[in-house]
Structures are given as C-alpha cells and as structure tokens.
C-alpha cells in the first residue's frame, strides 16, 4: 500500500520537474492534468475501508483535475489564440535546478518535521512541499497567464496532498468544496483570459502591469 502511494507521489514529483522544464503550454497542461489524476487516486489507497463517499470524491477529483480543468484551459488557449511557446522570466535550466533543489530540500526537510508514525514512511509531506514550491516557481517565473494558472493548479495539488494527511479528521466534503472553487476559478480565468486577449491583444502579464486608456 505504502509503496504504491510513494510511487504515485514520486510520479507527481517527476511531473513537477517536467512542468518546469517544458517550453510549451500544452505539455505543461498535460503534466498538470496527469499529476492531478495521480493525486486524485490517493484517497482510495489511504482509506482503509472504502466508503462510497471516498470513492465518489476520488472519481470527481480525477475527472475534474484530469479532464475538466485541462479542457477548460485548452479551450481558453484556443479561443484566445495564444502562442504555444512559454516565455520565462527565469530560464528553463535555472528553474529546473531550482525545482530540483526545492524537491531535495523538501525530502530532507520533511525528515526534520514531527510527523505521525503512519505518515513518516510516506512521501506525502515532501511531495506536498515540492509541489507547492514548483507551483510557486511557475507562478513567479512565467510570463503567460495560462502557465501561471498551471502553476497555481500545481500549487493546489500540493495543498491537496497536505490535506490528505488529515483525511481521517476532516470530512472529504471540505476537499470537494475546494475542488469546486478551483474549477469555478479556472472557468472564470478562462473567460477573463479571452476578454483580456480581446481588449489588450496580448496575455503577457508584463504588459498588464501598465495601466493605459
């Protein structure tokens, strides 16, 4: 059980680096959606007895993070005619190295934390920290609005991983509420991206910081 969990979280950590290193928007979106699907399966593995609510939440998470949100992002991309190339503020190699350093620091730092014995053996905490850090780098280092949204989603995946630590004490309803919020957020972002594109002819956030008539 623990090995499968660690394998899935390890996959998510690898996808973090893939998202940092790829220069094209569709591959970042794909990395994010596969990560969401991998993490969506985790509640099934972590719960000891399978409640129908757990199964339902896992299925909804996989569907929303793996299919609905990427589809919304792709549609926004198509509608706004965004070029596929990502423009980085921080180059790909430095951001990849930063992400790797963050992952290593997360793995090393998680050992210093006081965890419950059942969580100490898993990669839950390092995976969460690494994903949050990766999301942060993507948010800060990329100029395109859509890749920033991807960074935000990877960050949300990290927070979701942290939430799994408390799976026994918080109702899954809270998690599904967050999921709903995120979906609506992406939906609204998709619309806004289209509007910004129409109004300003660009989605480059560098230009959006300048106010003009």
């Amino acid at each position, binding site marked *: 059980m623990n090995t499968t969990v660690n394998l899935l979280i*390890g996959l998510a950590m690898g996808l973090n680096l893939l998202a940092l*290193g790829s220069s094209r928007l569709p591959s970042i979106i794909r990395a994010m959606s596969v990560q969401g699907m991998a993490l969506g399966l985790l509640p099934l593995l972590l719960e000891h007895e399978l409640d129908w609510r757990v199964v339902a939440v896992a299925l909804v998470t996989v569907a929303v993070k793996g299919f609905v949100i990427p589809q919304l992002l792709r549609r926004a991309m198509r509608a706004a005619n965004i070029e596929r190339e990502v423009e980085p503020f921080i180059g790909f*190699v430095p951001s*990849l190295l930063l992400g*790797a350093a963050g992952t290593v620091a997360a793995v090393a730092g998680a050992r210093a934390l006081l965890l419950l014995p059942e969580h100490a053996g898993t*990669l839950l905490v390092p995976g969460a920290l690494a994903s949050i850090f990766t999301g942060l780098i993507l948010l800060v280092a990329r100029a395109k609005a859509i890749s920033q949204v991807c960074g935000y989603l990877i960050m949300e995946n990290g927070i979701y991983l942290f939430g799994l630590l408390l799976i026994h004490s918080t109702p899954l309803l809270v998690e599904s509420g967050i999921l709903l919020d995120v979906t609506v957020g992406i939906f609204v972002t998709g619309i806004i991206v289209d509007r910004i594109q129409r109004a300003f002819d660009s989605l480059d956030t560098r230009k959006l910081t300048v106010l003009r008539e």
Partner: protein
Amino acid sequence: MIAILEIILRLALWLVLAPLLPGIINKVKAWVAGRKGPPVLQLYYDLARLWQKGVVLSTLASPGFIAGPAVAWVALVGAALLLPLGPAGSALSFRGDVLLLVYLFAVARFCTAWAALETGSAFEGMGAAREVSYAVLAEAALITGILSLSVQTGSVTLAAMLSQPVGAGAVLLAAGLFAVLLAENCRVPFDDPNTHLELTMIHEVMVLDHSGPPLAAVLHGAAVKLLLFAVLLSQAVLPLNGLPPLLAAVTLGAAVLVVTVGVGLVESLLARFAFRRVPLLLTTAFLLCLFALLLAWKGGAT
C-alpha cells in the same frame, strides 16, 4: 602468461566488436525509414579503406595533429580494459580505477579537440568549442551517476561498483546515463552524425581535416567509446554477477544490443535539438543521476 593472453583476447574482442554498433544503429535507422541501408559491416570496410590511404597534412599543423587521434584512441582502448565484463571482471582492476576511467574519457576528448584546433581553421575551432561546452554538462551527469553507483555499493572499484544489484534508483540512473551516452557519442538530439551542414555539426566538424589512418583512428575510437558507454549503462542497471558466465555474457550482449537499437530508434524518431535546448536536456540527465544518487544515499528513501 595466461594473464597477458587474456588481456590480448579482451582487447581483440573490444576492438573487433566496437565497429559493429554504428552499423547496427544505421541499419535500425534505415529500417525505420523504410530504406535498405548500408551493410552492418560498413564501418569495417571504411576503416580498411582509410587505413590504406595516405595522409594530407597542413603545413601549419604541428605533430599534435597526428598525435591527437592516436592518443585519444589509446586512451579509449585503455578505458575499455578498465571496464569489467560481467562476472569475468576487468583486465586491470585496482582501487579507484573509476577515476582513471573518467579521466581517460576526458583525455580522449581533449586530444580530439586539440587536434581539431591544430588545423587553424575557425570552423574546426567552433566544433571543438561546442564539443567541450557540451562535455562540461555531460561529464557532470556522468560523474554524478558514477558517484551514485559508488555510494550504493560503498566502493570505488569499477568491478565492485558494477556487480552489485542496483536499488530503486536504477531507472533514474539508466535514463540519465542514456542521455549522457547520446551526448558523449554525438548522437541525434545533441548532434547529427550524418549531416555536413556547418550550423549543426559538432563531432563531424572536428575531424573534417583528418584523412587516412588518423581518421580511421578517430572513427574507430568513436565506435569503442559508444560500446564502452553501452556496456557501462547495461552493467550499471543489470546485476550480472549472480548469473552463470555464459548466461551473463548473453545477457550483457542482449542489453548492449537493446541500448544500440534504442539509440537507433531515438535517432530516427527525434529531431536534432536547437543549441539552446541542449543544456536543458543535459541538466535533466544530471538531475536524474542526482536523484539516483540521493536514493542510493538515503538507502532507498522512498
């Protein structure tokens, strides 16, 4: 006496088998593209032909122009003697021989670049500069990979490092070393060995002015290097020591074949990367080896 005979036999095996690999790669490429392709033994014919030809020397070139390929060839063959072959062990083995292996690769590269610079041609200087700047990153990845093997087994002897069963990091290490193999041997995502277009060449441009036996030495040395990396990669991933000798030899041969066919497939299915994308790929290889190192260090920390 027996020991000397064994060394000679091993040497002959390395020297004779090495030119087979580029032939197999070309055959795979031709097969994927639906062509007939050159015969598998083409490099042997080329080498034989080159060996009988004369040498054209620039009046500017110092003896280093001839010495470069020769020293590089000797260094690579020396590296081949250091590398163990499954349970048969290596011809020469001592504590810390892995360092010598890394440095022999470096000497070979230095000599090729030096001979390229000897011609005084700006074009060849550019090739040497490209080769060396890729090597900086590829070497970091190679050393990290070797370090992870060393940490895993607690030894600095190649025979011991490559014989023990590998841990969880084997997949990462294999991926990292494969990328290093492609970069070090100037294969497709990094360099296109078939083009003669000046914008893309790296290794080819360095040997443009060589002719006759020195060129044969360069080509044969490149084939030996490819075989070396293929054997190193196979042994780093597969634990061969527990197997009976014959089975181990067959497994090693099959693994080298798989690596070679893999190189051929990569060459046919991928396009050559732009120069600015290459450091990214090599950094990824470095990170893969680094994560393998971390896994080895923490004793399968997953």
